[in-house]
């Protein structure tokens, strides 16, 4: 896939050389996160050096996609263009992935009554295709 094709797949997103693998992964419905070849630690968002050991040898690596909700809010206001139901409330979470403490992704939780969501809940990643915006990471409950 050319860079032009990748950029066309994600209108409005700042796709660059550092995070291209993450977005290319989403097109294949996979979540790939930068992992250090030297010290094996993960980091996100993608950058060009390992923040732990400064190695420049990094491999975008698929994660299991399971984790725990560590931050939670419910949005009751937003742009109509977002396609979210702000009357019911649109949940937004940060999820700490099982791979490493502090390794987190943000997104909404699909198909969940926002009033019942809780910090500490287990969720898994869903790669969701949004009309006109390209696929993105969101979550669903594990049980």
């Amino acid at each position, binding site marked *: 896939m050319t860079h032009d094709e990748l950029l066309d797949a994600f209108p409005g997103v*700042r796709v660059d050389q550092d995070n291209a693998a993450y977005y290319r992964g989403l097109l294949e419905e996979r979540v790939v996160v930068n992992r250090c070849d030297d010290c094996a630690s993960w980091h996100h968002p993608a950058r060009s050096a390992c923040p732990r050991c400064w190695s420049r040898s990094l491999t975008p690596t698929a994660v299991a996609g399971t984790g725990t909700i560590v931050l*939670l*809010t*419910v949005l009751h206001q937003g742009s109509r263009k977002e396609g*979210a139901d702000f009357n019911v409330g649109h949940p*937004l979470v940060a999820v700490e992935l099982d791979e490493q403490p502090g390794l987190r992704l943000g997104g909404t939780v699909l198909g969940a009554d926002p009033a019942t969501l809780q910090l500490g809940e287990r969720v898994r990643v869903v790669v969701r295709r949004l009309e006109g915006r390209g696929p993105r990471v969101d979550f669903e409950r594990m049980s």
Partner: protein
Amino acid sequence: MSPSRRNPARDQVAIVGLGRSPYGRDRVGCTPGSLVLDAAIAAARDAGVGAADIDGLCGSTVATAYVQAALGIGRVSWFANPASVIGNQIVAAVAAVHSGMCETALVYHNAYRMPFASRSAGRDPMRRRAMLGLAETRSAWGTGHAESGANSMFGANAYAAWAGRYLHDYGYGRDTLGLVAINSRTNAGRNDNAVYRDPLTMQDYLAGRMVRDPLSVYDMDIPVDAADAFIITTTERARDLAQPPVLIHAASLGSTDYGIEEQLLDLNHAGQVVVAERLWAKSELELADVDVFYPYEGFSNIALSWFENVGYCGRGEGGAFVRQHWVEDQQRILIDGRIPVNTHGGSLSEGGTQGAGHLYEACLQLRGAAGIRQVPGASVALVTPGGYYFNSQGFLLRRDG
């Protein structure tokens, strides 16, 4: 490594001019540039300096080149536009003045209601054009956030999520955040520059429209058109100018390697922790010396964290602390019955200028020029603008002599 105590600029640089463009929710005919010029001209006149005296410029989003040309400031030897407000501009100017890069700096920041900020702003066709050329806010910073919107843990959404985490972890209800909002509103009642001055009760607060759970309309700063400006020069020179100098005793910025919203490990890794540690290390003053306190409350939960980080109480105790120091018959916080907090009404009631209003008010109090809300004998102010990630800042200011 223990934090450096080195602070050669201590008390050597002063704020000697204050100017502003009045805060408003319904102003028409203003631009970001015109707001800055209002404030800049007022600050220079307040200090008794003219264009020929100013040789340093430091602002937020309005380019220094614009201000320099618009005010006919013939020659400047130092200028900068740092991103985070207002501490980054002030700290840069202190360093520039103390190092000799310039003698007298004009520092400014403005807020401008973008068309999405309110219905009235949305009706102004020229405000729609004011968005022209602006990138999606945070992606332009290059911090790593490549997207924003309802599915991104970013900006206000993330502050709401951290507020929820705080209430959950330490067992507080929303009424704890309400005390911060009511304190600001009560104090705003004595400030003509504040956009919201009517009293706010806890009942009103709890009935407020929920926006980003647990933050309601009363927990988030009020979009305004406004600007503040400051003239900064050496204390020596300031003593010959028109106003009593406010000395910058110590200042610090703070950031950790968990600098974006959802990656912040926990509140012990917030930039605020660094600010407080460095500020006290560089200071000859102690918390007990503080007469007035200005914790930023652009989101109400941020203020609770500042109480904790500057040392009034431990992690998670901010909510209990404000309740313990709540004066029911005044509907505001008085620490130890003595020290008022955000005497101007803060971002929640005076209007949201990202901490510039807090700094301005602290200077007024130290000059003894705060009118009906003057705190008698105020001689030391602690000002802590900014939130958790990339904009935590702190200042210890003192009256001269």
